């Protein structure tokens, strides 16, 4: 196996898993420094600064996280609000550079976090596919080649030339999902996102994600839905105040979480 970060860790080797490590976090720390009072404007900031009264307090969103996710896994992340679940996804997707520690990600990351980010109400559905798709790092040429599939999956054939402001929220979500999943992702990040659209479309989305799993996509999933974790995930981690409180087979981690 071609592994640029060195040999696989002993823990993984001992399990006899010949799979590649897709995501590896080593001692990852994300520390926010927030001023204790809200300094909304530069004027306020400058005055306080002159009075030497800007006091910062540290907040550790992630506090020394070690984690390895293997190729093809669906890995669940559970925990209360503010435990650092979304921060963990941000570190993997490169949105946040960790304050300390190391993040290693092998493969292209597709975030299924914010469907239709950057959509513009005045542009048509087709124009928005181009805008949203390039925001996700696709090239115009690739998007044009997949345009028919995207429109087809979103079931928006009749409306694709209409401005987005005329769409219902369900239609917008469908279009966003169709663009985000137009390509088989190597790594998929899912954050409480599939509560959109009607039942029929929800089933279609789940079917597509199932398809990805069979084809080898690695999925990192954040949700409060324990049922979904139990049925979908191979392993899971429970985050508590930025630390891993439990890590292992999904059923066991959920049991620990519920017992607490």
């Amino acid at each position: 196996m071609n592994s640029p970060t060195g040999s696989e860790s002993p823990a993984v080797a001992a399990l006899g898993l010949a799979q590649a490590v897709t995501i590896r976090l080593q001692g990852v720390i994300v520390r926010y420094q927030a001023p204790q009072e809200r300094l909304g404007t530069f004027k306020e900031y400058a005055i306080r600064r002159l009075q030497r009264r800007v006091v910062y307090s540290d907040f550790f969103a992630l506090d020394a996280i070690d984690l390895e996710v293997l190729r093809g896994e669906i890995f669940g992340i559970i925990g209360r609000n503010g435990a650092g679940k979304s921060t963990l996804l941000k570190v993997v997707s490169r949105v946040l550079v960790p304050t300390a520690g190391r993040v290693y990600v092998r493969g292209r990351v597709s975030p299924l976090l914010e469907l239709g980010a950057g959509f513009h109400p005045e542009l048509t559905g087709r124009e928005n596919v181009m805008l949203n798709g390039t925001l996700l790092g696709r090239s115009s040429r690739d998007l044009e080649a997949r345009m028919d599939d995207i429109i087809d999956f979103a079931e928006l054939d009749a409306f694709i030339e209409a401005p987005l402001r005329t769409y219902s929220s369900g239609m917008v979500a469908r279009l966003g999902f169709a663009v985000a999943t137009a390509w088989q992702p190597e790594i998929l990040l899912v954050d409480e996102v599939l509560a959109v659209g009607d039942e029929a479309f929800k089933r279609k989305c789940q079917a597509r994600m199932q398809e990805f799993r069979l084809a080898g996509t690695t999925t990192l999933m954040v949700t409060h839905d324990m049922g979904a974790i139990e049925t979908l995930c191979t392993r899971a981690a429970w985050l508590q105040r930025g630390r891993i409180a439990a890590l292992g087979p999904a059923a066991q981690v959920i049991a620990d979480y519920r017992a607490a």
Partner: protein
Amino acid sequence: MQGETLGVKTQIYDSLKRGPVAWEELRGLVQYRDLIYQLVRRDVVSRYKRSALGIAWTMLNPLGMMIVLTVVFAQLFRTVEGYPAYLLCGLVAWNFFSQTTSAAMTQMVWGSSLLQRIYMPRTAFVVSAVGTGLVNLALSLVPLFLIVLVVGLPLRWALFFLPVSVVLLAAFSLGVGMLFSAWAIYFPDVAEMYQVALIAWLYLTPIIYPADIIPETYRFWFLHLNPMYYMIQLFRKPIYEGVLPTVPLLAAAAAIALLTLVAGWLVFTSRADEFTYRL
């Protein structure tokens, strides 16, 4: 950072093996060039979609401003031959500068909510603001040339120098836009203060008035400490005077533009990783 597996390129991200951010951003921008195009297209298209006169507004805007200012000031500055053309030269360059630097800030504030959720080059929004400005500048050159012809000034070969003027002005504006938007992302009032500063800067620059009304004793310093004076001259020389800029003027303008761009790029990218740490 590319690995090779089964003949397919695999992206590898290692937070400890990143190059300098200033360089990584440049590479990212090349990779995301289609995004820049789409952002510019969005700005241009969405601005005109719901207005009846469409794209004509970009041309009528400077024209209208020129007419108002000409009515007000033409008598005062009777000594300036072809005053409407003199005025419009400076105005077109100034509008580009003030619009792109302001847009860079608003785009960055808008884009920062996207940057919290999806990875993309952080410079994309500021660069696209300059791209949109270039489209508008190209359109506003049409009424400018019309006015030059109307007031009876000849169009000369020196006009072919204009692309250089545009590139230098764009580089300068991009640099200023980056310096201020890296700051405006933390404090919304920076954009407000900048608008006030722009008004003062406009009146300190000989755009509406001729440079020779400034008392001779301190005219040199007054003009030559103002970077926008060089930029305006880069437009006025070939269009209004019909001559090429002198070598010292060109050298000074190029040095200002490049230094501002490099400084803006370095300041912006050195803080780019902190943008998403803002709570």
